[in-house]
């Protein structure tokens, strides 16, 4: 899997330029900001939504919307069918055995909290170990710290080198017979590093540990085949893959999900309720208490259709090529330093500028219509590792163009001129 991603990234130079065609599907890109065309370079925070996704949600809301499950009227049936079809669509996208392994959640953060609260509290005991990497998003750190406070588990951190690569040998040396789980990002949201997850899985499984992969920054930019990766849990959010906010996925291996207790109680997740005792549904519904994000599920499925048409691998190569172009052009600006340098990266570019704080950079380039993000990107431990308080980050999506890169670099040059 990571081998495939590697090969495809290397081909990027030959990729015909196709962003123009995708771009016209995104209505928001027609916006201007203070008279300048919007240059949206914040897709790692959230991707924009293409018209087919917006249309799918609107048509569903106008024609078929009702609450799902249990209803017998026509709309309830249509809504339930649409919702469960979305689940099947996700399963097909991931290449997993059964839609029953796909749990809908609010997003990757909730998915990780679910695993920590359900699997973690049931399975882990004081002294059990879990391993994270030094480049995790806070959402893959804090739930485990909460679990540590509740159970007394030990959290170990696999280091990354100066380029932002996972240090394989150091990681391997952290694994032992107390290691129960390795929770790691597939792609760094700060540096774009593609982590060799298949290798991580092999090492972890050999030590008897399960593997949870945070796929938020991967699914829209690499071909992801969860079966081939061999992970035990894979989590991601719809809004980072051209779908709506408010919905995401916890995929878990069927036998593991079966053994996990509910984490939230309520409607939708029960078989039978009596005041003496209630019985619970099987996964995935066991983990879906309350009315889910129904319209969003419809949009999510449409986003997967759209992404598969474009081809995540092809989009990713295009984005990486843009990031490399930007990196070369930024290198000509005095005092700009691009962070990271892993051989395998997506279209995420973090940089700093001597004497100028990233927030000032982001404010100034925004005046030219260029939307980038500045700060710690919810990865404070990685900032510490890199020895900086914050970065400015440009992250590319399928719709970005060479013109976007030129506008971005010109705006950054303007920052240099202003600050001297």
């Amino acid at each position, binding site marked *: 899997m990571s081998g495939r991603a590697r090969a495809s990234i290397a081909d990027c130079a030959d990729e015909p330029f196709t962003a123009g065609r995708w771009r016209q599907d995104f209505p928001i890109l027609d916006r201007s900001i203070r008279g300048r065309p919007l240059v949206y370079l914040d897709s790692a925070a959230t991707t924009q939504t293409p018209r087919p996704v917006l249309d799918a949600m609107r048509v569903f809301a106008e024609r078929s919307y009702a609450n799902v499950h249990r209803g017998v009227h026509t709309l309830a049936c249509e809504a339930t069918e649409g919702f469960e079809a979305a689940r099947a669509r996700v399963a097909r996208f991931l290449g997993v055995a059964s839609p029953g392994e796909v749990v809908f959640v609010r997003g990757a953060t909730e998915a990780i909290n679910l695993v920590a609260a359900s699997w973690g509290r049931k399975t882990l005991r004081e002294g059990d170990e879990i391993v994270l990497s030094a480049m995790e998003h806070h959402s893959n750190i804090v739930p485990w710290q909460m679990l540590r406070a509740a159970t007394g588990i030990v959290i170990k951190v696999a280091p990354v080198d100066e380029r932002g690569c996972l240090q394989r040998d150091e990681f391997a040396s952290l694994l032992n017979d107390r290691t129960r789980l390795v929770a790691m990002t597939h792609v760094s949201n700060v540096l774009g590093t593609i982590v060799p997850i298949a290798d991580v899985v092999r090492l972890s499984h050999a030590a008897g540990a399960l593997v949870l992969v945070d796929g938020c920054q991967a699914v829209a930019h690499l071909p992801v085949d969860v079966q081939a990766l061999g992970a035990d849990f894979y989590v991601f959010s719809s809004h980072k893959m051209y779908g709506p906010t408010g919905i995401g996925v916890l995929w878990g291996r069927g036998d593991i999900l079966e053994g996990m207790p509910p984490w939230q109680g309520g409607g939708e997740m029960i078989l039978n309720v009596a005041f003496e005792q209630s019985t619970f549904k099987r996964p995935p519904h066991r983990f879906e208490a309350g009315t889910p994000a129904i319209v969003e599920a419809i949009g999510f499925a449409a986003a997967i259709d759209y992404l598969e048409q474009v081809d995540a691998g092809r989009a990713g190569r295009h984005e990486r090529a843009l990031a490399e172009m930007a990196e070369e052009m930024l290198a000509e600006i005095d005092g700009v330093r691009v962070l990271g340098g892993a051989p395998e990266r997506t279209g995420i570019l973090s940089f700093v500028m001597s004497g100028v704080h990233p927030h000032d950079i982001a404010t100034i380039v925004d005046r030219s219509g260029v939307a980038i993000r500045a700060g710690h990107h919810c990865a404070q431990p990685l900032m510490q590792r890199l020895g900086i308080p914050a970065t400015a980050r440009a992250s590319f999506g399928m719709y970005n163009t060479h013109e976007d890169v030129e506008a971005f670099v010109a705006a950054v040059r303007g920052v240099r001129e202003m*600050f001297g």
Partner: protein
Amino acid sequence: MQDEALHDLYQAVILDHARNPRNRRRPEPCSHEAAGDNPLCGDRVTVYLRLTDVGQIEEAGFDAEGCAIAVASASLMTEVLRGASEAAARRLVVAIEALCAGRELTDPGEDRESLDRLCALSGVRAFPMRVKCVTLAWQTMLSALEGTDRGSISQ
């Protein structure tokens, strides 16, 4: 294209204070200090004051890690605080909040001279997301006066 709002925000006085912050030190002795941070963006500032027995600020210093606006605000603040009474310092916090929100200041009275200098910070009112960069140092100064350890600006 001249962007007036942007040049108002990053005007020469601000850039000068950001590049060459004044009073970036801990005065010795120091009677009051507090640390503040803005968890949203990671800016951190520590404010140091030496007050006389009658509540006059003899010396003010700071340390900060943050953007140009946050550093310039702290630097300018320490300049105007020197020699000010505690009561005047408190009034200035209220005035700064008003300045950043674009509200008209009612009669500045005896604070006029300080406020004239602090007007350089008013460009931030066109950038609501950056207002906290200005106010962080001032809120932290208030925490120092009140003897609370730590100011934190939450979203």
